[in-house]
């Protein structure tokens, strides 16, 4: 994932700040490393999985970034400015997969 500015440019001078993925509701889980530091504006999440009810759609997970100052962004873009969530569409279980705790 990458940090972008208004002009769709990656923030290539941004290093070591965190991008984090958090769950928004208690019926979801994030497994694996959910926060990573950016290097030249880009962070990678190579070992990450999401859990929720199989078949559920548009399950939202929150994205945050230390490098994004929401107070500054809201002065420019309005008080309701927010970052987009990650939306996950879960499939149903495949043969052999086990449903535990409805996940």
């Amino acid at each position, binding site marked *: 994932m*990458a*940090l972008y500015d208004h002009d769709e440019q*990656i*923030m290539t001078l941004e290093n070591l700040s965190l991008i984090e993925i958090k769950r928004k509701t208690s019926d979801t889980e994030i497994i694996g490393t959910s926060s990573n530091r950016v290097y030249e504006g880009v962070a990678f999440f190579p070992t990450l999985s999401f859990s929720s009810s199989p078949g559920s759609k548009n399950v939202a997970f929150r994205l945050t970034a230390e490098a994004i100052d929401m107070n500054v962004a809201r002065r420019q873009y309005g008080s309701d400015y927010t*970052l987009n969530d990650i939306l996950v569409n879960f499939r149903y279980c495949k043969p052999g997969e086990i449903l535990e705790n409805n996940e």
Partner: protein
Amino acid sequence: MISLLTSASYLSGIEVSDVSSTNAIMYIDEGGPFVFSNSDISNSGSIINDPVYIYRSAVKEISNVTMRNIAQTPLHFKTSTVQLVDNLHIQNCTEYVLIERSMISSMQNSSFTQMGGESIKNGGSLYLVRSNMTISNSNFTENTAIDGGAIYFSCLGIRKCNLDITDSHFKSNKAVLSGGAIKYNVYRPTMQNNIFENNTAAYGPNIGSYAIKIRKKNSEIEQISLDNIGSGVENTVNIGKSPVNNI
């Protein structure tokens, strides 16, 4: 030195060159509304104070003024208003024009050339701090700074600031770090019909600002959506097992 502490004046036909004084050439405090025109200021090497310092004043017009080879901030406005700047040409100065908490209603037909340097932090030719300004038909050429090669627009105070730039040309300006032509830290300038040509920076060759969003690298889709995800299953396609997959 010209010190103007009263009102309603014309400052015209001033020619100052090869200045060796350490004082400002013009220091105007609570002056105006006055006109400053048809003047040429050049080659001030050892001035400690800003050569032209306009403080708490109302300026009706600055026109046909040239400033060259000045080893300082050539022009400094603080808590002042300026109705019109027309044909102001500044070149080869080691610092920027500093505009602090001021209003420049219109600047037109002006040029800023070879100002600043790689040790100048903010704005090679113009450094606006909590100010409002309208710029049109002006040229910014070969100016240099660490951030904002030609213009740095700062507005960290409570009040909103506006910078409007139209029909202007930014050519060969350079920022060591961000915003080869323009850098802003809160409010985005409104820009129309400008030309950006050969400006350079480590980030933002023409315009540098700040991060406002996160999305997949090299994706044009704003929303990050993952489909067909197995719950609790590491997803090698959509999430990525290596940096190649870019999320």
